[in-house]
């Protein structure tokens, strides 16, 4: 497996091998699916749209609907306005969404299609039916990663719908806005559960719960029941605060909402693990909400588990890769479990990754390979040079895990080769319990596999 990968690390300035990221539009597609009755729409040639839909489907094992402008060579030279206009007309006629959320690709970005102008044209020529909306985000694939694309579409939700609202008298409970980050529907449910249990009315955007974990009922629903509604997006201005979970995926939207609607915002780490979840709950507490006993109890269960299991984690070497918000919070959690994060890596560009990782690891930062904007080929080489006891990351890690015979835990996006993950949270205290269970299972399965017969224990 991966037997062409040499141990010796050589400098590369141009060749990317086995990326730890993909391109912007897929993140925008995913974010758009978190709007109720919304059809994501790809303004480019149709290959992108097909790839994005396939990939999202492979992770969620759910339908992922999206339309495309289907550029031809002619449109690529003379501009895609006719394609987009025709695309909007056909999509509204055949699929009747409330919102079409347009993202761009490297094709339409390179030729410089002016999307707002085309949407204006669609409006004035009656292509957008009464009461329906077309929003857009520019998502050039040659900039950032899928996380950037997610962030850009979240920003667009704010820009297209949010306004300043002074009168908040309608609200029965204070409204809290949450940008949950590029996480699974189950994570969004868990975040909502926590915030609602302390007494907030939550507007989460995007919210894919109910969309990408829809039940089997025997009838296909093109637009499932979930998703943030246009009405909710228009009322974002009523929020007492916006919490952005994960600076890479969510900070920009919260900042934009602050600017447009004057809702104060706070950027928090993705609540993976105990410390990051504590900070999230702390932020809720700071807004004047009392923390209910059930949350305190669940946290206590998590701490109890951490005490019980610590011998199996202590000083275990771990390599973590994936999206920056995920990797940073998990690195902190692994540190808190007494593990040694030997290699941490993301494919997404951004200096904040290194800065933040150094802060988390403190005086141990120089013992860790902190790799921002890097790839899995490098990670594999690093592991060959400095082996680890556990590898945590997306499905692509399974090749390294097999090549180097390392226990492996799937975490983050995408997970293409296992089932049920999108239904089980890995965020919050519940998610931390789940993560401990998976990581200790992996370590102990390995101990069982490798122990001699006389060391093979019933009780561990």
């Amino acid at each position, binding site marked *: 497996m991966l*037997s062409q990968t040499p141990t010796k690390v050589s400098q590369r300035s*141009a*060749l990317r091998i086995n990326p730890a990221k993909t391109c912007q539009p*897929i993140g925008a597609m995913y974010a758009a699916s978190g709007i109720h009755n919304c059809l994501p729409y790809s303004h480019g*040639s149709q*290959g992108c749209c*097909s*790839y994005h839909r396939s990939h999202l489907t492979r992770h969620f094992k759910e339908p992922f609907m*999206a339309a495309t402008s*289907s550029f031809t060579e002619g449109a690529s030279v003379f501009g895609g306005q006719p394609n987009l206009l025709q695309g909007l007309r056909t999509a509204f006629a055949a699929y009747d969404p409330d919102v079409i959320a347009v993202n761009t690709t490297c094709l339409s970005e390179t030729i410089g299609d002016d999307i707002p102008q085309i949407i204006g044209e669609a409006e004035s020529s009656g292509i957008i039916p009464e009461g329906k909306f077309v929003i857009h985000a520019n998502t050039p694939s040659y900039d950032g990663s899928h996380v950037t694309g997610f962030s850009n579409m979240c920003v667009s939700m704010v820009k297209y719908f949010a306004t300043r609202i002074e009168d908040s008298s309608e609200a029965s409970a204070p409204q809290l806005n949450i940008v949950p980050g590029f996480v699974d529907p189950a994570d969004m449910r868990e975040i909502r559960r926590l915030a609602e249990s302390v007494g907030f009315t939550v507007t989460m955007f995007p919210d894919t719960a109910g969309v990408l974990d829809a039940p089997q009922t025997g009838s296909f629903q093109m637009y499932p029941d979930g998703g943030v509604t246009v009405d909710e997006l228009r009322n974002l201005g009523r929020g007492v605060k916006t919490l952005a979970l994960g600076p890479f995926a969510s900070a920009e939207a919260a900042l934009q909402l602050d600017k447009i609607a004057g809702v104060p915002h706070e950027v928090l780490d993705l609540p993976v693990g105990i410390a990051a979840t504590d900070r999230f709950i702390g932020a809720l507490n700071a807004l004047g909400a009392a923390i209910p006993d059930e949350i305190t109890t669940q946290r206590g269960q998590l701490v109890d588990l951490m005490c019980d299991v610590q011998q199996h984690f202590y000083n275990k070497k771990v390599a973590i890769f994936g999206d920056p918000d995920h990797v940073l919070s998990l690195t902190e959690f692994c540190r808190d479990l007494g593990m040694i994060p030997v290699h941490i890596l993301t494919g997404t560009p951004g200096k904040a990754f290194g800065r933040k990782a150094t802060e988390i690891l403190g005086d141990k930062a120089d013992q860790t390979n902190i790799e921002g904007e890097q790839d899995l080929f490098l990670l594999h080489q690093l592991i060959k040079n400095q082996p680890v006891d556990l590898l945590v990351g997306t499905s692509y890690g399974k090749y390294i895990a097999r090549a180097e015979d390392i226990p492996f835990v799937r975490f983050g996006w995408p997970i293409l080769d296992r089932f049920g993950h999108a239904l089980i949270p890995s965020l919050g205290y519940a998610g931390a319990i789940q993560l401990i269970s998976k990581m200790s299972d992996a370590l102990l399965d390995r101990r069982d596999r490798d122990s001699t017969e006389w060391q093979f224990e019933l009780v561990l």
Partner: protein
Amino acid sequence: APVATDLVEDLVKPYPVKVKRKRAKHITVNDPDEIPPIEANVRSTPGIITTRGCCYAGCKGVVLGPITDVIHIVHGPIGCSYYAWMTRRNQADVPESEQDFLKYCFSTDMTTNEIVFGGEKKLAQAVREAYEIFHPKAIDIFSTCPVGLIGDDVHAVAREARKELKIPVFAFSCEGYKGVSQSAGHHIANNGLFKNVVGTEELPAEAKTNPFRVNMLGEYNIGGDAFEIERLLNACGIQLVATFSGNAQLAELAHSQDANLNLIQCHRSINYMATMMETKYGIPWLKVNFIGAEATAKTLRKIARYFGDDELTARVEIVIAEELAKVEPVRQAVRARVEGRPVMLFVGGSRSHHYQSLFRDMGMPVVTAGYEFAHRDDYEGYQVASTIKVDADSRNIEELTVEADPEHYRARKSPEELERLKASVDIADYKGMMPEMAKGAMVVDDISHHELEQLIETYHPALVCSGIKDKYVVEKMGIPCKQLHNYDYGGPYAGFRGAVNFYQEIDRMVNSPVWGFIPTPWEKQSA
């Protein structure tokens, strides 16, 4: 059964007027005796939700990607390379002494800087780095959407690298917007392989003793299909020179001109290669189908008839008898459990046809079928190929002018022999999908999501065959959906063993207990 002409009306009903008119031409009611023309291989309607992919996917993803010992560098932003990374299940069993890059993904990961200032330097450097790290036998380069727009000359970079590194480096201008689907990419891949690879090496003399030498064209070894085909050819004493391009190494393709017959499995993706090799080297081609037990037996007999050797013919009959004996009990058992239940097939450019033989084996009628990106000849038969007008969207796909090679052309059969053979073996011919389908069955080209949903509501099929994007849509309706691109991670489905796998898989899907749980007990109670 629904009245088919009304159904066409129904299928296009919600579309804007112009789209209605356009889509109606892609939907037709089959008549095997008088094949109606169908519109195909034209641009998709924006916004309609097509399942089609792009030219790059057809070139890199389908045809070139499976070659194991070449480094495939994708010149573009990261997505194109990433999404084609191990997502098609073209398996390969590479000897340990050989390099295998199948699990790797190579990209120039273009950033804004290259879009603005050009990406040729980065590409040249990427090729250099790939060479320094891996020392591969060859490197190929694939263009993506922005490359053509910013004017990077990938072929010039390849030429320079070839001089510098002294290994084959060649490029494909397969920008995603070219043509109207994956199909353009197949054509571009065929041209590049033909120009740069085929005929660049000689088959070693010791490998030339068996006169029954064939190439498998258009077989990508999804789920191990090519392994099963190779097993059968070996058992019959037929030598497989090269497979384009499942489980393939570059050298096989390079000396494939030394085969004596080309077998085409996927007509759409590789027919260009077959006709070009026929013209240049004198190798006849035969359309075959290794999907289905009956179809496989028929294919092996066709090959034997072509070579006209008694011993070979006898061996083929022994192999068929032995294999069918194992297939038959499973087929009978499954048939009893699935017979008469209708099926819909919407796959890329060949499987919608090939799998009909497997469903015939089980007595499951195909009520409607279509391709994503096939051309009219795949629907109606090879005889219409010469009448097809290439439209503006596909005009820029290069047609190579090929002539007989003065040194290497060798007629495998005399014109008289070929003429005689044509009575019993359909040499250089493909009958297309529609002649094999029932009268009144619906044929839909480049089907949209709306049309698929409507057809399912109309026919209430027991099973739909399609791809990953449709799978969970269909299953949410309570109907099993068999993925015929990736086989739902099973396979092989080719050959005799494949047929057994497929029967059992369809039985499992159609008769699975899980579907019975969809209505809740309390709904059942009140009903």
